[in-house]
């Protein structure tokens, strides 16, 4: 007789590995199915990851996980065609365990994460695709994979933003371009000593640097540079619908960004080793699918658990926390020997108790606010223009800053618009 699993987890990303790890640790017969040749082969992210959820699973994880650097400094820059205005934050604590954030590359990291689930007793099947769900009347009873039927009491879909299984379970509608941001990224190798010199880093210190400005041509989105050990993760995030409307590809925006004088100097002499792309569901609460049905749960990006607030774009923590909550719901169901919809209904309750649904509720108006194109063009231009007027010494009599500001605002943005945007910030963020 074929082995019947307690749980099949589809996808070995942060959500799936967490869920599989927690289930196996609790003694459940768990199978994790991953379509890539190895866990991480199909996965990419920007590259900065903030640690508290992983810390709860694996205290001192940074000592064993393949971390590139710890994020010691955050820098934020507004760019125009040829100028930049930056702010930086660092604090001593960011440089001490348990650290605040890390730069991470997925191919290695997910591989490590999956090995933790395996050590806990989960079976990992890589190079295996969940092609369909197995049904017992209206209950999900396993998956079809590699031409085989694999029965299980419950299936947890952690198969990412394009979650085929969530669609097949009939739990979500079509994804809309407006709700999606496209991320494209280059990994650029730079000799370690040169990288540390350019970014003023020593030892394992790293920087997370985010940019908004004219390079996205008014398209909601931004750019990032994260420092790895001997490479940079350089990328763009841009709203998919706006790319189509403006008839421009994200790679063109990335090239715009890379050619900015302040950026080009950082990348000079670098060697491109990988070009990747991925979608991010950024409309938050409004796009969350139905999270469970009989014998079925959805977690991570598949459930659109991503928090976008403009300054942060956070998915991995939500994936890990939702993987934990899904595992807890399944463990409870196993104790009751009842995997029905009713029995699994504790899943959203567990998510509401954690930051996952709390944060998405708090910031439910953020995505609409972040469509405001003034954020990406007029405000960066205004700020750089004002800084230019303040710092340029042209030998002429100086004007008061207030006058300069009024002058910079002219033809760009009206007081009434700034006031309206401030009110929106209060409401949304």
């Amino acid at each position, binding site marked *: 007789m074929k082995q019947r699993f307690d749980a099949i987890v589809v996808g070995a990303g942060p959500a799936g590995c967490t869920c599989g790890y927690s289930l196996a640790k609790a003694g459940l017969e768990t199978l994790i199915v991953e379509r890539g*040749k190895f866990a991480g082969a*199909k996965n*990419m992210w920007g590259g900065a990851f903030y640690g508290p959820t992983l810390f709860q699973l694996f205290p001192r994880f940074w000592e064993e996980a393949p971390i590139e650097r710890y994020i010691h400094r955050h820098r934020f820059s507004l760019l125009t065609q040829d100028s930049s205005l930056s702010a930086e934050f660092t604090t001593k604590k960011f440089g001490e365990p348990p650290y605040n954030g890390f730069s991470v590359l*997925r*191919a290695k990291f997910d591989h490590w994460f999956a090995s933790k689930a395996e050590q806990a007793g989960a079976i990992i099947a890589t190079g295996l695709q969940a092609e369909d769900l197995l049904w017992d009347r209206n209950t999900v009873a396993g998956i079809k994979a590699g031409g085989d039927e694999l029965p299980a009491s419950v299936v947890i879909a952690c198969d990412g933003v394009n979650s085929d299984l969530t669609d097949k379970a009939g739990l979500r509608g079509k994804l809309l371009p407006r709700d999606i941001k*496209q991320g494209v990224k280059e990994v650029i190798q730079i000799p370690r000593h040169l990288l540390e010199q350019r970014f003023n880093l020593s030892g394992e210190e790293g920087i997370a640097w985010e940019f908004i400005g004219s390079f996205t041509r008014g398209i909601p989105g931004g750019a990032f540079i994260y420092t790895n050990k001997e490479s940079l993760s350089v990328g763009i995030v841009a709203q998919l619908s706006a790319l189509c409307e403006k008839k421009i590809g994200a790679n063109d925006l990335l090239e715009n960004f890379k*050619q900015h004088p302040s950026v080009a100097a950082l990348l*000079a002499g670098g060697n491109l080793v990988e070009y990747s792309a991925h979608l991010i569901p950024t409309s938050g609460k409004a796009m969350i699918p139905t999270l469970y049905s009989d014998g079925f749960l959805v977690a991570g990006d598949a459930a659109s658990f991503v928090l976008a607030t403009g300054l942060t774009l956070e998915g991995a923590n939500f994936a890990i926390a939702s993987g934990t909550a899904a595992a807890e719901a399944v463990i409870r169901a196993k104790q009751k020997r009842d995997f029905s919809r009713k029995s699994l209904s504790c899943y959203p309750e567990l998510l509401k108790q954690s930051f996952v649904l709390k944060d998405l509720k708090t910031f439910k108006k953020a995505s609409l606010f972040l469509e405001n194109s003034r954020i990406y063009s007029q405000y960066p231009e205004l700020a750089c223009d004002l800084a230019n007027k303040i710092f340029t010494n042209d030998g002429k009599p100086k004007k008061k800053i207030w006058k300069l500001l009024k002058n910079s605002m002219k033809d760009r943005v009206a007081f009434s618009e700034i006031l309206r945007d401030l009110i929106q910030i209060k409401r949304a963020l």
Partner: protein
Amino acid sequence: MSSASIEDKLANNKYDIDKEVHVSIREDICKKCDEHYCLYACPADCFKLTEDHITFSYEGCLECGSCKIVCDKDAIDWTLPRAGFGICYQYG
């Protein structure tokens, strides 16, 4: 760094290209489409407009799903490559 074309960029990636095509387009529908959103949505330049028709090559596909989401004519039959095939990120 000098600006590289998408084709040059993709040449750095590791793929295990399947003989089986995983994404196909309905050329009859694409012919009548004015928007061609796929051209701008695809980060791997898999869609090309030549004269009056769209062509698609699947080899460089990064499996992101953008084309399927932006096509409002349902002209794209989108699936993932068979397990073990397609893009194989070494960094991610």
